[in-house]
């Protein structure tokens, strides 16, 4: 019998958080092995566990999967969260790449100097409100369905909820001009597996604090 998937990463969001969200939303229980020191990372590298010497790495279905998007695509396809055909998959991919770009900007904020951080925070808020959120608001408005693609829950919806919550941590009322996204947020948050993941005590990780920033810098040498 296959064991639970095992996630290898630091004890923080980073690039692994979207994977945690997707597994949780799919109702898949998983274990985590946290990298706490540089030596932990070196050990994984020396064991030959990391195909390109990098994490995230997820042990699942007899594989040691690396590369965030490869892992996410696999989980989505395996759990019927990737649309019903090629065209739906293309739409999901486009939407997910947009939320990936937005969350990618937010992810690096804790590592920036105060001056750069202030500028980038303003840029993130501007992009969220002018480039990204309008696209998802319009998509939901145009078809009037509960979900972004194919009238069915997909990876795109889960990823969008994660991005919305991260953006709200940047500016609490960032959805003020987006009524459909507000409704979407409420609705998707109530899906039982996702609701459980949003409760305290779940494997969802909090935003980074200064201590975590220092630890991550030490582990990855930057």
């Amino acid at each position: 019998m296959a064991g639970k998937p095992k996630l290898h990463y630091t004890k923080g969001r980073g690039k692994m958080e979207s994977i945690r969200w997707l597994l949780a939303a799919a109702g898949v229980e998983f274990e985590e092995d946290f990298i706490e020191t540089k030596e932990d990372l070196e050990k994984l590298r020396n064991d030959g566990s990391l195909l390109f010497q990098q994490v995230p790495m997820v042990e699942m279905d007899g594989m040691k999967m690396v590369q965030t998007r490869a892992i996410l695509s696999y989980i989505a396809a395996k759990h019927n969260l990737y649309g019903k055909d090629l065209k739906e998959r293309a739409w999901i991919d486009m939407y997910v790449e947009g939320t990936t770009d937005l969350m990618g900007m937010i992810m690096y904020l804790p590592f920036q100097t105060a001056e750069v951080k202030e500028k980038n925070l303003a840029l993130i808020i501007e992009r969220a409100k002018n480039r990204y959120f309008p696209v998802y608001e319009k998509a939901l408005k145009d078809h009037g369905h509960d979900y972004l693609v194919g009238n069915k829950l997909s990876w795109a919806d889960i990823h969008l909820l994660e991005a919305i919550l991260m953006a709200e941590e940047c500016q609490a009322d960032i959805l003020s001009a987006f009524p459909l996204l507000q409704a979407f947020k409420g609705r998707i948050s109530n899906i039982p597996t996702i609701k459980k993941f949003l409760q305290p005590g779940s494997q969802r990780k909090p935003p980074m604090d200064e201590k975590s920033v220092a630890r991550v810098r030490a582990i990855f040498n930057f």
Partner: protein
Amino acid sequence: MFQQVPMVEMDGMKLVQCRAICNYISAKHNLYGKDLKERVLIDMYVEAILDLNELIMRAPVQPADKKEKYMADTVDKATNRYFPVFEKALKDHGKDFLVGNQLSRADVQLLEIILMAEEVKADILAKFPVLQSFKARTSKIPTIKKFLQPGSPRKPPLEVKDVPKVLKIFYGDQ
């Protein structure tokens, strides 16, 4: 969709986001493996290749004082992190293609990145005999051979003198 290019008009859609576009084309043309496990292996290889591609792509815009170190780091990653994996994969199964004994997007993108890396350092494949054979063999596939000939839509490397023009298109007057 997100005010960005690339954008490809195809099959009644205006596709954006490189990965979405490449995923669609690959799946449509049977270059994405035969099942989920082949696809995830192809994805792992392709994502790594895209990381190296991005490193090389950003070289022309590096500030002059950082460029030498940047190029050294890029060559180091190519020769110590990425190429050894593909050399080993081909050596281990002994087949002509990276995944599933069949041409896939992973092979196409590997050839592309090999040629890009050779533009950075001509003998970058010196320690990788299996990749050298792969390069020769894959270059001979008729469609690919045609693309490698002069007059094809293939684009040359970005020259440093053209960088300001590109930046102006995307970022306006500086």
